[in-house]
């Protein structure tokens, strides 16, 4: 596995994608990460089907409340088909039920909104460090 690591972000809000990329601009510039953004789960699945061999997505950040396909269903499908992808789910609702559902669906972790980009940053940093170590 080499850098940049590929991150997928699925959210129905365009501004969120902009924000995400702006927040992690430094890492993008250094070539540590590459952010692939999708407005809904179906777009992502189509992408994965086509490009999975080329582009190895490692981390997936997704919202639960989305039109077309909600986050939990997406998580289930992805964890089944592409088990090497780490999935992180975010939602405005922080109920225990959602958290359990997310974990059962295969998510690595669950965040409540508003998302703390610091935590996300740490996850990405750790992954980058991991890959760097493996490479050497």
């Amino acid at each position: 596995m080499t850098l940049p690591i590929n991150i997928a972000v699925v959210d129905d809000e365009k501004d969120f994608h902009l924000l995400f990329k702006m927040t992690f601009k430094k890492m993008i510039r250094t070539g540590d990460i590459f952010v692939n953004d999708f407005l809904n789960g179906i777009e992502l699945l189509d992408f994965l089907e086509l490009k999975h061999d080329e582009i190895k997505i490692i981390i997936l950040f997704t919202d639960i409340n989305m039109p077309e396909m909600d986050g939990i269903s997406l998580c289930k499908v992805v964890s089944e088909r592409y088990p090497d992808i780490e999935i992180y789910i975010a939602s405005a609702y922080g109920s225990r039920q959602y958290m359990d559902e997310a974990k059962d669906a295969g998510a690595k972790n669950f965040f409540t909104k508003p998302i703390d980009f610091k935590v996300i940053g740490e996850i990405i940093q750790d992954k980058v460090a991991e890959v760097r170590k493996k490479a050497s």
Partner: protein
Amino acid sequence: MKELKEIINFWLVVIISTIALIGFVIEGLKINKLITYFEKQHFETSKIIANNLQATLLFESVEDFNSLTNTFDFKNDYISIEVWDSSGKLFASKGKPILDKLKESTKVKLEYSYIITQTSIDSSGKNFGKVVIKRSSSELSATIKNELLFSFSTLICISIFFMFAGRKLSEEVVVPINGLNEQIKEILKSHDLSVKIPQEHRILETKELSDSFTELIRDLLDSKRELEEMNLNLEELVENKTEKLSSTLKDMKRFQAKLVSQEKLASLGSLAAGIAHEIKNPLNLIQNSALIVSNFTQDVESFNLKLKERDYTDNDLEFFIDDINDVKMSSRIIMDNCKRADNIIKSMLSQSRSDKSKISQKLIESLIDQSVNLCFHAMRAKKNPIDVEIIKNYQENIVINCYPDDLERSLINIIDNSFYAMQERKQIEKGTKFSAILEVSLTKNESFTVIKIKDNGIGIDQKLKEKVLEPFFTTKPTGSGTGLGMSMVNDVAIAHNGELIVNSIVNDFTEVSITISNKLSQEDV
């Protein structure tokens, strides 16, 4: 049904008649015997006299006749003697002439006051004549009279005795029975089982009857008392139950009121929760964008330093300009989301019903027309305007009480949704012959006025139909609608004592009926 008296009298009559009959028979026989004896006696006597007159008649001696008959008592006994000879000629007579015509064969003729005997005078087998003797039978009559009188008196006495006995018997039985009967009647009249009529009892059977009856009454009295006790207990039980029930009812009513107020609070709570949730997102974006701007200021400082020392690369410049663009973008995001948050609050305020709603009378069709026109022009002025055929079906002159502002707002909401749905369908079915049709109808029946708005847009899925009236439910993309419209319309319908009904088939039609009461009054507020 016969009285005892009648029965006893009947039997008395039977007995007395029987006795009388027997008596008469006996007396009859007796009298018969007397008469027979009497006749026999007289006949014997006349036979003797006839014998004595043999010689007289033979020798035709009248002196003989007279001397013979001188000894006879013609005062009290003999009435007349006539001697006839065999040729039928009167030979001699004494006393009154006998007028009775007697047959030859008649030997004796007994009358009430006299007896006549006719005896033939014979000697050595030769008939010389006959002697007819008439004597008084008054003695016999008197005897017979006495006999009859005696037996009749006896009969009368017996009858009287029996009648007396019968009456006494009847009394002995009937009086206690009547007494018992009176007591029963008295109890029936007064419904008081404790009534007692004192009775003397001389007959065992009636006493036993009376005793049994008294026992029966006592038994009934006891049962009655038992029932009264049970009844009192029951009444107590019922009272208790009723008390419990009424207090339970009060509790339930209180509970119901609590539930209603809790529900109201809950819906308010969910409204507030919904608002909070909706605003979280824009706020989050604002916050993170602000962070980027804030981080940039640090970068400016470091870049400024580089600039001063002229120690920068082309890359640095490129990145810096890129960062400035990011800041621009972040500012844009901040402003957009501030507006978004503002809109959410504004639409919430406008879509919630104000407490100051007033009732007034309105011509409903003009209200509908206003709403349709407003929505149509608004739709034409915005993105993706479409042509819509509007069909109106109004019942005329419907003027009723309503909340005109709220009603208009509701209609606008519904019609807006209709136009949106038809726009969507037009997008999906681009190129086909789809033409948008909006049907608006207004009807009035006895209690309600119904406004129906039907569009042929994309429709609502069966599964989602229930959620349509939920606050914040919307199928529109983020920012296009708060999802509060239909829940507000529902509230308005309820405020008009009516209801909101949504019917739909996907890709076919959606029909929203809003029903409002005809008799809305200020008191309903």
